[in-house]
């Protein structure tokens, strides 16, 4: 087979299709799901609901899998979910130092930086330095908790709700919540740009 990955994958796919082991339309459907259907907008809905509904937040923090299933999310690489809450004194950060484990149903597929050696190597030994590379300087007194996804548990950071968002609807809140805030490498910003930890 050719060494160029594009040609190699094409050859591999035609081989497996020819042998009847793979339906190319199933591949299309899998790709479509992760390019268009499953992504951080799912996680944002969970976070926005937790901000609006204290009962939901309590359920999310005690049994995240059941809570996200209430919104219809779950499945592949989100079979066992844990939500960890940022507070005025605690900041959580998620990494997988051994591979690139990530909560697909809520955040989609991981970005390249999350899977990269720089992030995986230093998130555990120098989380504050890593956050600085994302433009986030935490106060010295903040407690940083890093979650290394070494088993089949998948972690979602419940970011802090920014001040000035009290009158917003769940949908408006969800639009503020980015992927990075749910990994823990950013804080949720209000439209005016004022952040909260």
């Amino acid at each position, binding site marked *: 087979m050719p060494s160029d990955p594009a040609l190699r994958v094409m050859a591999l796919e035609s081989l497996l299709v020819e042998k009847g082991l793979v339906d190319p339309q199933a591949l299309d459907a899998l790709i479509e799901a992760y390019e268009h259907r499953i992504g951080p907008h799912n996680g944002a809905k969970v976070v926005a609901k937790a901000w609006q509904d204290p009962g939901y937040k309590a359920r999310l923090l005690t049994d995240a899998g059941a809570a996200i299933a209430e919104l219809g999310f779950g499945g592949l690489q989100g079979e066992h979910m844990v939500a960890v809450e940022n507070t005025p004194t605690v900041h959580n950060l998620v990494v997988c130092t051994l591979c690139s484990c990530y909560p697909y149903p809520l955040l989609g597929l991981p970005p*390249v930086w999350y899977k990269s050696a720089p992030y995986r*190597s230093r998130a555990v030994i120098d989380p504050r330095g890593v956050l600085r590379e994302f433009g986030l300087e935490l106060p010295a007194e903040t407690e*940083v908790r890093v979650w*290394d996804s*070494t088993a089949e*548990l998948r972690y979602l950071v419940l970011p802090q709700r920014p001040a000035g968002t009290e009158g917003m609807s769940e949908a408006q809140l969800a639009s503020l919540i980015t992927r990075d805030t749910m990994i823990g490498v950013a804080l949720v910003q209000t439209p005016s740009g004022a952040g909260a930890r």
Partner: protein
Amino acid sequence: MNGVHDMGGMHGMGPVQPEQDEPVFHHRWEARVFALVRAMGKFGRWNIDAHRHQRELIPAAEQLRMSYYERWLAGFSGLLVRHGFLSAEELATGRPVEDASVAGSARLSPALPADKVPAFIASGSPASRKSASAPRFRAGQRVRARNLNPTGHTRLPRYARGKTGIVDRVHGVFVFPDTNAHFLGEHPQHVYSVRFEARELWGDAAAPQDSVHVDLWESYLEAG
């Protein structure tokens, strides 16, 4: 195995480089290999632990040079041959060989159909197992990660070995990767979230209030 995939605590990898408005896939072949791995996973001939271990076995220098999906492609190709879906000859030539000794065939293994994809994604592949065994450790208990250096697959990162922490949560019983990756059975065990103080792991330069939580199987741990 003490491989380069076990990166926690290493220096010299350069700065983190986030990309603005990053696409889900950067090349079509990445999307295809991602989908191929998932679709072939349907047959249950290997498991997530074996798949991870296959990538760990890529020679270290190559592993560091390869992109994420290049590693997937290499690991996947290896698994296809190892589990008889393709012969080494087919992989080398890219042409199918009529050979009854090659196990992979539509008759034995019907392909995942497109209309089953949503259910396939939604059901996932839970790694938890029912067990009547009581957990050996409880939340709040001091434990030490054992100093294990197996040459096969393990999910005990090097930076935690020999270190002492506190059990933060008892997660339940899960398939044991160290055996499952080698097709030696699931041997489910309790898994714990263990909180290690950053200073225990990294010394006095770390902030005194910071911590790293690591999910560890029971046999990785001893009472601290």
